């Protein structure tokens, strides 16, 4: 039993951190007319070469052969910079392709030769038709990943008419579309794909919770009011401590859940959903609350467009509509029993 990173895992974290801060700094999001999903081709290829789209795939599909644990570490780093979710959706699409036996498609996705968006069914019983989906990162994507109670599917979205929607988070392209006539190119039982999706989403949330904590902590060391750094006032330092606690507890549960998920691939375990959904609800709360506190404690500068704090808030809100809602995950947590040996 050990919840600390080993040397190889630390190297993965360091390498990811250095690439992300160099190539995908949060400041890239400035200038709202440039959707960041339009990643430069060579950057997208570079990301594929690093193996981020194929961490857990077999070597046959061009994979790196790591476990969910290492994949989680990468996506936590990606979360710190509100990285393009196209990376997440394409990595998940490659898993669906591989699990469906479409190794060729899996390796094309893994190599970054194509990309996938995420299509969430708009099942809210309102004005939208029951067939319509809200598609995230639809731009430059050839495929749409969707999940229902039974299946995870990849559909070919080329030639589909998208109704673009402007969103809170301008770095994520969003559109409404009816994908029901799109050809299904791969499908597989939903459970393992959904678990992996939720875990990686939680990993990004943890990265965001940690990044917002660091952001305000650094500012609190230098910004002065009443002749003293604001970090010396308990009205500021105590909420900072609470931010750190939320991030740290969510991180520990994330690591634990990633180990449980990775173990479940070797032997039958019944509590994967319990741990993964717990990680998600804690990480989501940590990211949402920390991005809120980060803006509040910055004061006026926090709400300006030229500052980066608002990107975390907007991304955190946008992500809440991916891979089931907080409420659905809470229901899973309540109804899934603990395994006695844990």
């Amino acid at each position: 039993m050990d919840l600390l990173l080993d040397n190889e895992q630390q190297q993965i974290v360091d390498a990811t951190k250095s690439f992300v801060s160099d190539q995908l700094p949060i400041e890239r999001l400035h200038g709202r007319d440039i959707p960041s999903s339009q990643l430069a081709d060579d950057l997208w290829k570079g990301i594929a070469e690093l193996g981020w789209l194929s961490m857990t795939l077999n070597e046959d599909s061009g994979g790196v052969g790591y476990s969910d644990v290492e994949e989680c570490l990468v996506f936590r780093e990606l979360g710190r910079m509100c990285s393009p979710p196209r990376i997440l959706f394409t990595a998940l699409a490659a898993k669906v392709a591989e699990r469906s036996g479409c190794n060729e498609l899996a390796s094309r996705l893994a190599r970054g030769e194509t990309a996938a968006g995420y299509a969430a069914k708009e099942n809210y019983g309102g004005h939208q038709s029951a067939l319509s989906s809200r598609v995230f990162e639809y731009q430059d994507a050839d495929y749409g990943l969707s999940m229902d109670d039974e299946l995870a599917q990849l559909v070919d979205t080329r030639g589909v008419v998208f109704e673009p929607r402007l969103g809170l988070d301008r770095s994520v392209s969003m559109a409404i579309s009816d994908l029901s006539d799109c050809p299904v190119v791969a499908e597989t039982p939903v459970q393992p794909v959904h678990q992996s999706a939720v875990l990686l989403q939680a990993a990004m949330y943890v990265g965001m919770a940690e990044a917002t904590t660091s952001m305000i902590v650094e500012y609190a060391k230098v910004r002065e009011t009443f002749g003293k750094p604001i970090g010396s006032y308990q009205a500021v330092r105590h909420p900072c401590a609470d931010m750190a606690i939320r991030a740290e507890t969510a991180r520990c549960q994330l690591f634990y859940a990633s180990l449980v998920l990775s173990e479940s691939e070797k032997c039958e375990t019944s509590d994967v959903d319990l741990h993964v959904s717990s990680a998600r609800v804690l990480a989501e709360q940590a990211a949402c609350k920390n991005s809120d506190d980060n803006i509040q404690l910055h004061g006026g500068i926090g709400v300006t467009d030229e500052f980066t704090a608002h990107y975390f808030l907007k991304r955190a809100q946008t992500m809440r509509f991916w891979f089931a809602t907080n409420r659905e995950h809470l229901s899973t947590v309540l109804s899934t029993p603990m395994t006695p040996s844990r």
Partner: protein
Amino acid sequence: MNIDESTDDKLFREEARNWLMANVPRDKRPREDRSALEFDRHWQHVQFDGGWAGVNWPQKYGGRGLSGYRHMIWLQECARAGAPAPGANYTGLHHAGPTLIVCGSEDQKKEYLPAILKGEKMWCQGFSEPNAGSDLASMRTKGVIEGSEIVVNGHKTWTSNGQYADYQELVVRTDPESKRHRGLTWIICDMKAEGIESRPITTMYGKASVNDTFYDDVRLPLENVVGEIGKGWSVAMSTLSFERGTGFIDQQVKISETVERLIEIAKERRLPGGQLAIENAAIAEKLAFIKAQTLAIKSFTLSILSEIERSGQPGAEGSMMKVYVTTVHKHLFELASEVIGPEFIEYGDDPATNEWAFEFLYSWVYTIAGGSNEIQRDIIADRVLELPRAR
């Protein structure tokens, strides 16, 4: 990273489970103070005789010399078997013992450690004073060195079990010129020594064993000093780091058990109008969130244990743990009120009359004792976040 329990760990768990099944006392802890203490002593002694006292203490002093992880397995199995809590042995097992293991002399270890594990000697704490709680370093209780003795005069407070304990972990100011953290000395105080008076403090949860302790020319031998004279602050801080780091394994295990129990109760209790508590969306969501938090407490505990395995001692993360566990504890017992209904407020000033109400009221002991959560947040800001000091 891995969560595999080794074959040895599994065998240890099974061994613990079997032993507990055969040895956990069937009768409940008595309500009357003296008999409750006898019960605690007896249970501790039974554990010692069975070879289960001090799982992670050195073998030389009666422990089993195993890892912190094994200690956690033992506590988990204790909770599963419904074994009694350490009760009046808590301070000895979680404070004084670990402090002596790290800072005590060989003679002190030999004399005091086995007696704690056998349940023969009980300890209480003597840190806080009426004007030195959160600001512990402002303590004024005097210790004057006279020949081979230290003569103590002053007033300590919040002394749990002070009227029954054999020894006290006492911190006194031995250098009258000193300020704040300097000039303090950590000394073992014999509670039967002449000049000590305990006066009980009545608390909001009713019958309790917290006391004010007064010292009138109490003479303690110099050989009772733990660590060096004048270096008592660092000894006291190591005492507290055990409480904040690993002392919470107990509480972690207990909280997960309680959440599971409350969920079971919610499946049977009905709300006004006839709906089952668990079917109420607001209650269900709060129960689920607290359940997720208890899983995080456990993962966090494992992370801290891994850190201790690697570096030898708990870091400032213990302060994060303290704030988190005690806050979740309070929320859990607030929620119990919604699930249980009006019976929750039936209380006869004694834990035995309603453990839910008692634990609810006791939440504030957890969030205040051992360094209030406000002090913990300052520690986190100073040591983890390295923010500019508040004072």
